[in-house]
């Protein structure tokens, strides 16, 4: 009984079980999430091009025209360039989410657009990185990793 209890509470076993559950969750998600999207995304568009349907795509602005802009997205290594028809002002490098009706040749007539400017996006990444470094410093004041026991120990 004690041996069984020891095995069931062993760190290695719990680790393996949790990793397997995580892999299962990832697999189940990848296989099913496209069927449950509110609007088709780039993955669905590449698979069965739902022309005339309202789609939701996101990406980076690569070119700006008088009647819209070009949006570049990357789905599992496949690059897609959408021509977006919209009066919303954007600039090259902006991160954009678009909801709109899919036409021929990856053209989308937008009904809703969310824009995060290139500066705002980079600023978000930089301040997040700085915050993380500060957090690591404070974390190291209270916790140290003991490589012999393979676990964190309280410092104070």
């Amino acid at each position, binding site marked *: 009984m004690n041996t069984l209890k020891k095995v069931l509470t062993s760190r290695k076993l719990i680790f393996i079980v949790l990793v397997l559950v995580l892999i299962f969750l990832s697999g189940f998600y990848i296989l099913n999430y496209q069927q449950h999207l509110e609007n088709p995304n780039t993955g669905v568009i590449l698979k069965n091009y739902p022309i005339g349907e309202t789609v939701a795509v996101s990406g980076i602005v690569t070119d700006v025209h008088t009647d819209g802009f070009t949006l570049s997205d990357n789905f599992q290594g496949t690059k897609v360039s959408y021509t977006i028809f919209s009066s919303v002002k954007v600039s090259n490098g902006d991160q954009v989410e678009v909801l709109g009706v899919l036409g021929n040749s990856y053209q989308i007539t937008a009904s809703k657009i969310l824009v995060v400017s290139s500066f705002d996006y980079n600023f978000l990444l930089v301040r997040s990185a700085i915050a993380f470094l500060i*957090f690591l410093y404070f974390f190291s004041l209270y916790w140290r990793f003991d490589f012999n026991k393979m676990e964190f120990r309280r410092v104070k």
Partner: protein
Amino acid sequence: MPDWITHIVVAWTICRILRFKFKEFNNANTMIVIAGSLIPDIAKLVLGLKLIGIDASGYLAPIHLPSGSLIVAGIISLLFPNKKKIFLFLGLGVLTHYCLDLILEHVSGGIYLFYPFSWWQWQLEVTNSSDYMITLLALCIAGLVYLIGKEVDNNRALTSK
């Protein structure tokens, strides 16, 4: 995602408020809660991988869902002596992360809060991810809580003498 300043500051503020009542929310355990608040964004590693042309967003996306985040919290808690307690602190951090992410606006969809049991997507459409007014608001509230906490600690020290 709101920036990590917001996630860190909100997790710290909640711990500081809880410390008024519960001694367990000391500085060391607050660090664990803050670490938990950053767990869902491990999925943001895809940003780095995208730079070298690898799109792993589908594979890492479940980490940015409550069920996936809690499993990662479980894995991380194995690296601490008091696993159950640490898991609860990490879980609290994860909870604060999703409370903040829920307020973000997307053109479509939202967060699968109850995946794998439900595919219903949730979003409150309050603000977008680059809005630093939320960061400033969180910092102001944290500053206020810090000052109140200092005052309360001073009063407690005086009354105990």
